[in-house]
């Protein structure tokens, strides 16, 4: 999983490094964002009740016209929660007192589309986006220092997002991107049924040659 993230990161850096953000009207745009994620529903109540500031997302999208773009979106988010010591009933006669820790890493890979109603004009350009694909989920649950549940699996993910692009200048095709995404992840393992979240993100966008 770590190697996978390094590969994604290195690939994005290589792409950035090989292409000057020359503010030309390029049709292929890359964005890279820092993510803060808030778990929702039973993900929050059963697994992780704190927000996670350990995440990033990015997308590479082709401008179909000046209002619509489509492409590929990827991301990564690390969730961690340590619950105070408690006694858990393992079966009818067996109990365990333990500090329970949940450690979950989610890596979505999606087909993504973006609609910009102002057609890429203006100092602040709102957008809405949708995406769907698969999310690689690395789930580990610990009792004390012992792994009690562990599984790496893929789950469906659907995403809807809103935000704004703020170009560096009136003619610039690069700028800052700020927004939020809702991620629907119907995860079904170990009696849990969702890893859905709202992710707030801030980053940069720029055209590729």
């Amino acid at each position, binding site marked *: 999983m770590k190697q996978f993230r390094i590969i994604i990161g290195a690939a994005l850096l290589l792409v950035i490094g090989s292409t000057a953000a020359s503010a030309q009207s390029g049709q292929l745009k890359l964005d890279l964002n820092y993510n803060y994620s808030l778990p929702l529903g039973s993900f929050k109540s059963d697994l992780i009740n704190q927000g996670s500031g*350990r995440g*990033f997302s990015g997308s590479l999208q082709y401008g179909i016209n000046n209002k619509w773009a489509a492409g590929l979106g990827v991301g990564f988010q690390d969730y961690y929660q340590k619950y105070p010591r408690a*006694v858990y009933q393992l079966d009818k*006669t067996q109990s*365990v007192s333990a500090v329970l820790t949940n450690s979950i890493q989610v890596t979505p890979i999606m087909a993504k589309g973006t609609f910009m109603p102002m057609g890429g004009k203006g100092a602040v350009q709102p957008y809405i986006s949708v995406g769907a694909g698969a999310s690689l989920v690395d789930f580990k649950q610990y009792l004390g220092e012992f792994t009690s549940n562990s599984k790496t699996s893929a789950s469906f993910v659907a995403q809807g997002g809103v935000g704004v692009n703020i170009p560096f200048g009136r003619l610039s095709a690069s700028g800052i991107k700020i927004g939020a995404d809702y991620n629907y992840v119907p995860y079904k393992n170990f009696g849990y049924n969702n890893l859905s979240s709202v992710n707030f993100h801030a980053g*940069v966008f720029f055209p590729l040659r």
Partner: protein
Amino acid sequence: MKKTGALLAAAALILSLGACQKDAVSNLSTEESRIYITDHDSTVNFSSYKTYSISDSVAVIDGNQSTKQLDEADAAYITAVKKYMDGMGYTQVTKNDNPDLGVDVSHIIKTSTGLISYPDYWGYYDYYYDPYYWGYGGYDYYVPYAYDVYTVREGALSIDLLDLKNAASTNKIKLVWTGVIRGEGIFNTSTADSQVKALFDQSPYLKTND
């Protein structure tokens, strides 16, 4: 060129902030690393037992070798077990006074496989604890319940309650309760009491009537 540099810096910052992962185990203190597991025979009514006897040393199980020892930490564990057995309403007697329950404390270093597997531990129980010690030479031990199989490369401490009251009538010595402590810093004199307390606190059904 300036803009490219700024974008590279922003991208590197985003990746360095967002790509890190919190390690679950290294974020645990020694106390938090430990787990306390208990299991018991659900058919037993513990209020039918009144007295107990505890072995005067700890069995150290290392591979297929078993020795008895009594160092400072072992003594602290035996003292703590007595304290919490008394707290549950039982009366300590000598093993020659027909105790209702026998109490064994085991310090498991490793089993013959190099891993700790509790079914293995119970499989060798009569080897670690000769039933003769409790006055029932030739009897077999009987385990009516089974833990999930945990295997680790480190130590554990196990406390077992044996039904001696009904051994003669059933021709076997039945384990009726087991408490297992696993994790870091188990064999520690200063924390022996709190660790044994955790096992008894989560087993309120052990209480007998004085």
